[in-house]
């Protein structure tokens, strides 16, 4: 059986600037059609913890979190919270961006608690 891999981000004409910036370890957001650098700080807006896998590639990660972070600039961003136990995540928790180079091609912006 072929190994089931995690899905990679879908890069399109309208979001490729975001993923190119992430590869340079920069977080950018779109403001009125223009990509501008974001502070990288925000807070957890909401989150959930997966207790069962909905995709086989995530089976070994159970339990894992998926969160929406509200950036200082106001945007909501889907992400994972890292460097933190799932039980310690709370809504309103101050977080800052870190960059996870998942392979040679892609970097996922994730967020860790501000210490």
């Amino acid at each position, binding site marked *: 059986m072929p190994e089931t891999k*995690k899905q990679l981000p879908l890069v399109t004409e309208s979001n490729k600037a975001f993923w190119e910036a992430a590869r340079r370890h920069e977080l950018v957001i779109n403001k009125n059609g223009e990509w501008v650098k974001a502070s990288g700080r925000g807070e957890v807006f909401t989150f*959930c*913890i*997966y*207790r069962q896998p909905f995709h086989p590639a995530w089976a070994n990660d159970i339990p894992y979190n*998926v969160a*929406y972070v509200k950036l200082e600039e106001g945007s909501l961003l*889907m992400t*994972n919270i890292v460097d933190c136990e799932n039980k310690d995540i709370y809504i309103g928790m101050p977080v800052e961006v870190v960059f996870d180079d998942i392979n040679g091609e892609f970097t996922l912006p994730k967020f860790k608690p501000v210490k």
Partner: protein
Amino acid sequence: MSTKDKYAFVGVGLTKLGKIPDMTPDELAIQAINLALADAGMKPSEVDGYIYQQGIGGGLGDTMPLQMAGIPASLICQVASLGSYANMMVAMAICAMESGMAKTVLLVHAASAASRRGGGMMGGPPIASTPGAYGWYGPGATAACMAHRYMHLYGLKREQLGAIALTLREYANQRPDAIMRDKKITMDDYLNARMVVEPLCLLDFCLVNDGAVALIITSAERACNYKKKPVYVMGYGIDHSLRVMNKSPEAIHHFDGFVASKAKEEAFGTAGITVKDIDVAEMYDAFTIFLLSQLESYGICKKGEAGAFVEAGNLKLNGSFPSNTSGTGLSWGYLMGFTQLTEGIRQMRGEGGACQVKDAEICLVTGLGGMVDNGSAATCTILRR
């Protein structure tokens, strides 16, 4: 021009619900159509409109059910498989009849969600997906994120979500055709149930089943020619969170509640009634938290008060706002928005059996599910007997 009371449901056809691996969605649909025609006492040749929705598991073909049932429909239309579309299909049928495009319309939903589920969501090739890259799969995550927000903002307790699950299960325990008829649950069962996407457990999720339903709607004049007492459509409404995207970017995710005000204004405006006039409600319940949130977005409770409202027993048969009287998606059977529409019609006919709301005259039916995310479109239909 108002369509109030101009159209009515005259036929309901429902197959068995549960795991039915030896029937395809087409076959389930044909059975439901024939049952609906028999229920109305209508000849197949009298139907000239067909709007259908294939549920999870898919496979409901275009015209096969029509050929098999001998229905010469000229209006044939498939809509997306989303929980808000049952009520949109009511709106589409009425618009088709208003324009003269059709005289009598069949609305059909058929699914093999239990027997033929699969595809991308459950694995498959690793095609690109940004949510997938973060491990975000299925509508349960949206519901779980919504529940977390609600807990944070208003102190929602798990017991209050449990009260929804228990209330609906008690209804289903009294309904002969409910999948969960024989399975009783207690609050301990709820609190100890397996977590799926925290903070939601298995009993916060709707059922996954096969089954089909067919509903027949026609003009009020024609409706008197059939066997059953007509159930009239007083009004309908549709809203979508895209409408408020510019004003409130958070609303698009509806983590802090559903955008339903336009649906409510349209439907209640046409019907000329208020929420106080509702005798029974059938609200979309893919997840417990969805039902809770709609109690607020339709103005039945104030913001933050729905948890206590449910816990106090208000949704029960003897409560102030009897709701989801078949046990609906959580405990009766999940046919997307058709679960609620079907039970709404039955209540207005007085066919609710042990769960019939006494003397009920007006019923609110709601649906959720849209383009952006599960729940981003809110729809409703108001029925009367």
